[in-house]
Structure formats: C-alpha cells, structure tokens
C-alpha cells in the first residue's frame, strides 16, 4: 500500500500538471459537497444594508449589489454547475457513444444498415456545423428555460463528439481477431458490440468525458451569463458574473472577479485531468510515464556523493 502511495507521489513530482488537475477537481468537489459547513452565510439571503462591500474579514470575497455574500455563493455554485455539466456529459456520452458503436460496426459492407450509418454521420455533420453556443440558446428558447433544458443542451452539442470518437474506435476494433472470433463462436452482432467492442473502445471516451465536463461548466455559465440558463438568485458562476459586471466599470471588481476565477480554475482542472486520463489509457504513453517514474526513483535514491 505504501509503495503504491510512494509511486503516486513520484508521479505527482514528475508530472506536476496532472497532480494540480486532480487537486483542483477534488478540492472543488469537496467544497461543493461541504458548502453548508464551510460557508458563513446563506448563499441566497441578501443583507440589504451591506451591499457592494469590498472583501474583508467579515465578507471574504465581499458582497454583491444586493448584499449577498460572494464567498458563500461561489462555494455553493459548483453544486449547480458541476451537476448540470456532469449529467449533460454523461447523457451525451451514453447517447452518442452507443449510436457511434452501432454506426461504426455497420459502416462498411452492403445493405440498408450502411445507408443508415451514412445518414447518421451526415446528421452529426449538420449538428456540428452550428456554432455550439447559438445551438444551445436555440434549444433553450424552444424548450423553455430550466435546468433540465441546460442539461439537454449540453448533451445535444456534445453527442456528435462521442459519436465520432466511438465510431473511429469501433472501426479499428472491429477488425480485431477476437471480434471475428466472437462471430465464429456464434455471437450475434449486438452481443459482439456490447461484450467485445464497447469495453475495448472506452479509454479515449473516458479521457474525453473529463474534458467535456469542463466545457459543460463553461457552457452552463455562458448560458446563465446571457440569461438563458440558471436564474439568480440560485448561486451559479455565470449568473454571478453577469450580476456583477456593471459594477466592474465603477471600480467594484469583486462581484464578477471571484466567481470568474473559480470558473476558470475549475475548467482548467478538468482539462488537466482529461489529459492525464488520456496518458493513462494509452498503453505506450503509460509505459513512458512509468519508466520516467523509475528513472526518477533511480536518481533520487542514489546516495549523495561528495560533500
């Protein structure tokens, strides 16, 4: 156990950016979970006498223009942002990934299935041709403004990514010998896809998941910023930035800056975690990483020579 811990520490030393990513993501998640314990004030109650207070000991991040504590709201915000982003991303991976697996499996040969695969891929082209943000706003406008709609919008704009990713994976895995063998052994197409193809295609999808959660948070905030997402007074980074940004020109920078910084750091953290998963999921990159760790141990464990 302790040797595993030592390896983890060593990996953190040779790849500090990965360690930073995990620290950020874990810290933000813990903050969101324990928000009621950590925060000194309610995130939605306004203290009407002390509005636009600059940061000080009583209000760590200051107060906004209606007198709500920005520190408390910033800590509560990831509860909404993370939930929406994670749900939307999982939904898009589930829908895009499973359709992509089937499309990839049937994308060559003859018959109606090939034409269906072709049609699905062209539909994905059309979906991706729209600017993501415009597409998301259009969805919110047509389905009505609610948290479910934002989740759905994230799922929709990301689904083609998983569709393509899964399809390209399946195209290469489909020609693996164990896939052919499973058909020789009498498995149906669906049994083959579920049992042999999807599990072997998951690695890059997992890497994409983390990156997409970061993007999902950005999209949620952006929609809320323009008023199409989560509405105030629900604590949410995008709407907080929007509430405070008129005050920035008059010198009260804190209502926008703190939630903005939290948002940036969180997205950064998820991107780093995604990059690390990509390395860990790729056997050759993982070997490189582990050999770097061994090299580091060899160097640091050597007795120091000379004085």
């Amino acid at each position, binding site marked *: 156990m302790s040797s595993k811990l030592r390896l983890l520490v060593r990996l953190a030393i040779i790849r500090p950016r990965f360690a930073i990513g995990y620290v950020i993501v874990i810290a933000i998640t813990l903050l969101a979970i324990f928000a009621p314990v950590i925060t000194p004030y309610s995130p939605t109650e306004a203290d009407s006498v002390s509005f636009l207070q600059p940061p000080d000991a009583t209000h760590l991040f200051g107060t906004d223009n209606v007198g709500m504590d920005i520190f408390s709201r910033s800590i509560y915000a990831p509860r909404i942002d993370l939930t929406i982003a994670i749900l939307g991303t999982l939904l898009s991976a589930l829908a895009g990934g499973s359709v992509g697996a089937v499309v990839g499996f049937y994308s060559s040969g003859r018959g109606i299935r090939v034409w269906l695969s072709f049609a699905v891929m062209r539909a994905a082209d059309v979906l991706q041709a729209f600017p993501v943000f415009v597409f998301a706003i259009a969805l919110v406008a047509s389905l009505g403004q609610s948290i479910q709609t934002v989740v759905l919008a994230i799922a929709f704009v990301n689904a083609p990514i998983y569709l393509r990713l899964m399809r390209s994976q399946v195209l290469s895995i489909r020609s693996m010998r164990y896939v052919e063998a499973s058909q*020789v052994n009498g498995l149906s197409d669906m049994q083959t896809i579920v049992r042999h193809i999807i599990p072997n295609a998951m690695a890059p999808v997992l890497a994409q998941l983390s990156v997409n959660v970061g993007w999902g948070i950005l999209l949620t905030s952006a929609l809320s910023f323009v008023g199409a997402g989560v509405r105030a007074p629900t604590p949410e980074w995008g709407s907080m930035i929007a509430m405070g940004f008129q005050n920035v020109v008059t010198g009260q920078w804190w209502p926008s800056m703190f939630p903005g910084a939290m948002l940036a750091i969180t997205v950064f953290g998820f991107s780093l975690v995604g990059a690390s998963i990509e390395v860990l999921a790729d056997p050759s990159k993982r070997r490189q990483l582990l050999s770097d760790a061994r090299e580091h141990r060899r160097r640091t464990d050597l007795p120091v020579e000379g004085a």
Partner: protein
Amino acid sequence: MSLGAAEVISNTRNASAGGDKPPLIDIRNLRVTFPSGGAEPKAVLKGIDLAVQPGEIVGLVGESGAGKTTLARSILGLPPSPGRIAGGEVHFEGRQILSLSESELRRLRGRRLSVVVPNPRAELNPLLKVGDQIASMAKIHLGVAGKEARRMALEILREVQIPDPERRMDAYPHELSGGMAQRVVIAMALICSPAFVISDDATSGLDVTVQAQILALLAKLAAEHGSAMLFISRDVGITAHFCDRIAVLFSGEIVEIAPREPLFLEPAHPYTLMLLAAFSHSPKLRDSWTVPDTDRRRERSAGCQYADRCPIAQPVCRTLRPPLAEIGPGHFVRCYFPVRHA
C-alpha cells in the same frame, strides 16, 4: 466457370468416398469470390468438394494464400470480408447450412461447428477473464446459468490440461503464455461438444514441443467428444501423424485427396510431390521436384492452376482444366499426368 460432365461424376464419387455411412459434413462445389478491381471477381475457392465422416480427421494442407482459412470460415457462412460465397452447398447434419437464416446459423456456430484459431492471444478479449470468456460460450449456446457455466468452464480447462485451472479461470489473456492461450481457445471451441471442429492452423507460432502437446490433446479430445475434424495446416509432416485422410489445396482447388498412406507413399500430383520434397531430407528428391517459383501469385484463367510451376507440364495443361480423377481407392488427383510409382 462450368464443370465438365466427367468432373461432376468424379466429384459425386469423391463425396461418398470413405464408407457407406452418410458423411457428417458434405461440402459440394463451394465457390468463394473476392471483389477485384476488374469486372470479374477473383475466385478464391474454385469449387471445393469435401466430405468428412463422423469421427474422421481430415487434413488440409497448402501454402499460404491457397484458400485454407477462407474455406474454414466459409463453411460457417462467414467468408473473410470482403469475400462472398458465390455458389455451392454445405450439408451438415442433414441440412444445407448455407441456406439457413442468420440466427439459425448462429446457433450452429460454436455449438455444433466450431473453429480453433491461430494467434490465440489475439483471439481473446483482452479485458475479460478467460474463465468468463469460456463460460459465456456455454451460457449463450447451452442456456445454462452462470454458476453451472463456470463449473463447465473449469472442467473443460482441466480437460485441456492447463496447469492450475482454478487460478487460470481468473487470469486475463495477457497473463497466459502462447501455449496456455491456445489451450484456452481449444477449451472455448470444445465446451459445447461440437460435432465438427475446424482447426485452422491452430499450432502455428508455438514451440515445436508445445505444438506436439497441443496436437496430441486435440486428437484425444476429438476422439473423446466423438467430433470429426478438419485439420488445416501448412506443415505436411504434422498431418502425416495426425490425419486419416489428407487433401492438398492449391490456389483454391483440391489437387489431390487420399487416405494417409497412399498420399505419402504414392503422391501423384506434381504439387504434392513438391510439397513433400520440400520437407524431405533426400537431396535427390528435392532437386528433381523443387522448382524456382517465379510469379507464384499469377492466376490462370484456363487449364491447370499449377501448370506454370509444374516441371512436367504439357501444352494441354495450359488450356484445359484437369478433372479430379480417381487413381486408387479413395485417391483422387486433379492432373492429366499423375506420377506413377513403380
């Protein structure tokens, strides 16, 4: 491609050779084509006739590219992509299986007809424990519950003589040696006690000693389970030890088929002689039958496929396809000038 009348007659005789019992599997005039750049698709199997009796082990030898694997896969109705079955019939247990629906075929594959494949480690899903992969065959085909399937998997692992089978059940494919992985693949092929086993070059890439063990095991298990076997190999020597009858495949055609003794003692087709000479220790035999092969992949549209490499080819060989003719009991040769042995 039309068949001469004489050839049809000899083919039907060939199908019933080897006894009066109906054959377990009867392949008739099986033709497989691959699309080619031109208008005419390339014929990879040019009318294969082969019948296997229950309990019989038939060897199939030939160089790479002769169509051995294509034949193995086409018998299951799964010719290697992008190949297509252009004609012919495969009769198995009283049914013409190439005309069955996809789901009926699936119930046969792996259950009544199974294939033991080469490169065993590539044939196993790297993410699943081997015990589960073997058990899933029983679950899918025999409909047994999880616990019973695992018990059967453990039993068949014991039968294929894997050391420490309880522990191997939970091993992943990358933790096995090549020989052990081959045993796992054999276990998967045999767990449902199929009536017909196709061993497709199953021992290539293994050490010679391991190869011998696996072959002995295959023969023993086939006998115990009462399975007939089509044993495909590039190594003529192995088939001599192992098979009741041997067919020689060249360029998608069976050029000679005979019981073991006649084939090895009185080989009649020049190509069979060449194959045997290549494995022979006699320099005299090697010199007289090994020809420098130039342009070996060239296809002949007419005549004997072997004519361009044959040292005794005559003008007629290049124009007319020779029929498969019987020259001894159960001994058929596709050659106008079969070699006579004094």
